[in-house]
């Protein structure tokens, strides 16, 4: 071997503490070292060229840099090796600045000694380096976005506009998510549907975006660059190619075939034939067989004829102007499976709010105790009261309304976290009440008001000025009085006494949680759940839209409670992260991954149980004589080395951090040849 050792002075950052002359002499004496040079700044172009020339001239076949931490300039030095035609991985860095000259500046003599050991350690590892190459994979340039709320829509549009093929899978018949339920949104109190409707239309008509609504993810295989996803498109029992969304079928569907309406959060009814909301995109009818009363006893897959020989048609069939409804077809209740080849995935499945039934102390049986999401529907012109503020029990105007915050949030019994948006949306709702009906008394019971963020504190102050009573303190319970009125048993922390208010309507700000089936989805994808029960990002600061799996990203409220602006910011970040990852035709990754030796592997499978990424799998021999050995998936292995250190037969190696390399480093720290014990 011909190792070149390049010692950096770093101005005087290193040379003030470490005796460079002594270090150079020491390095010259090391076995296998052919060239030792120093430079005032090894990270300069001149030094880069010096290294490159040494390699080109055949003086050096591996490089040891004694300078600052590899985190700083490893890539820069690698490029010099590459430019000289050497594998860029024939490089080792001795960290003699951050881990030597700086922290040991008052023990110069010993600092020089330590620098020698660090250099010797690097040289002995360099001796065992191998000319590795980057691993490259081809990538499928298409993206799957799961969840069509404002988060998923934003990410899809951004990626579509960048030229990627996008499949947007939404479990409801329409995209839009929670935003379609709101009338106004803080902080501007601008119209929610004016924000979301144009985006819904755009995502549905974008040439590169395929919208798959009323669909769910069945299973996912593969890894970054090449996922194979099976999507189940649920049965709508309506031919969507023919349906023009006129709604004629929904008006004739008999009212005895009805269930509480999901779009109105159960405050109204919908029939078996329905279009989920006035904003629905795509605007298509869906048939719900669980609710259908089979008019004229005409079940699916049957034909009936009248006495006059004419075919009997159900009201919906008759009403449909395009023949999209045909009950004589045997529709497959399982729907249809769509298979997709996908390069990367963004999960944006949003949130659900806790049910009021959980909170027995707050009289959930009263129809006039509702969740904030239900109140959004009452405030909305498309809701059950057409935007008039009325009590659900009798559709009369309430004289007083109480809002109760932190219902299930910041409460050790349910969720310890803060749902983050409740303070603001309660202020918004209170404000909308005051704007519409200033005579209604409004109380907000809060532990404290949390309004950090742009314009939000101002929003709070303005709202207060509208004459809203904000009572700081937790509400212990609600009593239903004989006349149906509700007595709030509250506490005013500012004056330190219990308070009671009697109101006609109570709005509970119930906690935001991960949607029920999102956990199942997370399991299918291999995404972790964090301690608050949301999808876990890879790093709380540095990798907030990445999951711990390459090529799978998260955005919006499924990662934690957020308002719309934060959801959009995160969705845009996720889209950009996906685009950056897929920008080239191939992905390049460092070759620092595990390698299993078929010869040595005993097939015990200990490594399989320890691999954090399920990158290892037992490969059964093709016949009985062939032994079972472990196979490692190149794409999913992240190179942690847990399997390597756990293999009882020493069958697994790890490029860049192999056993002999680390042993050599240990030995070098002592000046003896390493021996494996």
């Amino acid at each position: 071997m011909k190792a070149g050792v390049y010692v950096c002075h770093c101005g005087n950052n290193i040379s003030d503490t470490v005796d460079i002359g002594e270090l150079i002499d020491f390095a010259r004496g090391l076995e296998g070292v052919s060239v030792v040079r120093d430079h005032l700044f090894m990270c300069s172009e001149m030094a880069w060229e010096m290294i490159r020339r040494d390699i080109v001239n055949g003086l050096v076949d591996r490089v040891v840099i004694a300078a600052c931490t590899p985190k700083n300039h490893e890539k820069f030095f690698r490029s010099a090796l590459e430019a000289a035609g050497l594998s860029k991985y024939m490089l080792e860095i001795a960290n003699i600045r951050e881990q030597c000259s700086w922290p040991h500046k008052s023990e110069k003599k010993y600092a020089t000694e330590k620098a020698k050991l660090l250099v010797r350690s690097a040289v002995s590892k360099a001796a065992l380096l191998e000319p590795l190459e980057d691993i490259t994979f081809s990538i499928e340039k298409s993206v799957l976005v799961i969840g069509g709320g404002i988060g998923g829509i934003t990410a899809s549009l951004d990626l579509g506009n960048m030229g990627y093929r996008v499949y947007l899978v939404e479990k409801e018949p329409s995209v839009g998510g929670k935003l379609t339920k709101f009338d106004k949104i803080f902080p501007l109190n601008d119209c929610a549907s004016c924000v979301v409707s144009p985006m819904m239309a755009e995502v549905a008509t974008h040439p590169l975006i395929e919208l798959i609504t009323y669909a769910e993810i069945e299973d996912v295989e593969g890894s970054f660059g090449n996922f194979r996803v099976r999507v189940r498109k649920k049965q709508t029992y309506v031919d969507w190619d023919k349906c023009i969304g006129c709604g004629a079928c929904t008006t004739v569907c008999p009212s005895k075939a009805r269930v509480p309406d999901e779009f109105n959060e159960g405050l109204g009814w919908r029939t078996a034939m329905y279009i989920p909301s006035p904003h629905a995109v795509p605007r298509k009818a869906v048939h719900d067989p669980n609710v259908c009363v089979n008019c004229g006893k005409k079940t699916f897959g049957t034909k009936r004829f009248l006495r006059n020989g004419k075919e009997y048609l159900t009201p919906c069939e008759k009403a449909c102007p395009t023949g999209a409804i045909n009950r004589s077809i045997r529709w497959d209740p399982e729907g249809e499976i769509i298979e997709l080849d996908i390069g990367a995935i963004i999960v944006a499945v949003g949130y659900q709010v806790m049910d009021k039934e959980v909170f027995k102390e707050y009289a959930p049986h009263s129809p006039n105790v509702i969740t904030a999401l239900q109140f959004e529907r009452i405030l909305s012109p498309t809701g059950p009261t057409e935007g008039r503020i009325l009590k659900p029990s009798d559709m009369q105007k309430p004289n007083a309304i109480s809002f109760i915050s932190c219902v299930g949030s910041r409460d050790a019994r349910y969720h310890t976290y803060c749902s983050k948006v409740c303070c603001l949306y309660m202020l918004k709702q209170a404000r909308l009440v005051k704007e519409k009906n200033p005579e209604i008394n409004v109380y907000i019971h809060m532990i404290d008001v949390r309004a950090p963020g742009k314009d939000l504190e101002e929003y709070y102050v303005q709202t207060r000025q509208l004459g809203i009573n904000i009572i700081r303190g937790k509400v212990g319970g609600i009593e239903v009085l004989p006349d149906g009125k509700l007595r709030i048993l509250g506490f005013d922390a500012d004056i330190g006494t219990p308070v009671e208010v009697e109101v006609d309507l109570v709005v509970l700000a119930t906690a935001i949680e991960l949607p029920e089936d999102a956990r199942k989805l997370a399991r299918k994808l291999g995404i972790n759940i964090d301690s608050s029960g949301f999808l876990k990002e890879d790093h709380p600061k540095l990798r907030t839209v990445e999951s711990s799996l390459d090529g799978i990203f998260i955005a919006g409220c499924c990662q934690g409670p957020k308002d719309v602006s934060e959801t959009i910011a995160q969705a845009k970040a996720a889209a950009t992260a996906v685009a950056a990852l897929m920008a080239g035709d191939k992905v390049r990754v460092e070759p620092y991954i595990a390698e299993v030796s078929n010869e040595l592997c005993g097939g015990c499978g200990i490594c399989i149980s320890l691999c954090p990424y399920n990158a290892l799998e037992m490969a059964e021999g093709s016949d009985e004589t062939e032994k079972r050995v472990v196979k490692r998936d190149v794409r999913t292995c992240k190179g942690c080395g847990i399997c390597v250190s756990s293999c009882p037969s020493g069958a697994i190696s790890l490029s860049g951090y192999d056993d002999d390399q680390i042993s050599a480093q240990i030995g070098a720290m002592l000046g003896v040849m390493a021996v494996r014990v």
Partner: protein
Amino acid sequence: MSDEFRPNIIGFACQWCAYQSADLAGTLKYEYPSTIKLIRVPCSGRVDSAFVLEALALGVDGVFVAGCPEAECHYRFGNRIAKIRTAMLRNILPEFGIESARLRFEHVSSSDAVKFVEFAKEFDKQIRKLGPTPLRGDKHE
């Protein structure tokens, strides 16, 4: 012979956390004993028991393994494996005539230079108190 005992201490440091906390300590010009020398590993879970035993057998006076904070392992749970492994090794070290206190596992976050420095000082002090490893002998330079 020098009069004062200078221990030789090796730390296996995870590249994501502990190694970076040491870098940060340097950047902030915090001082800690130069007896401490780090070997960078991808994850503390990469540290084979054999590495620890090998270092001790070769006459290193103290060994530590430093990984990410409890629930923040970059590779999900490599740090937990490392912690368990060091605990088991500590149990068997006395059988080789080595004090358990010569081996430690430490969680250090990449931003916690103070913790790294405090640990380094404290471990150095402890090893000094224990004196040279009983295995230190002719093998040593």
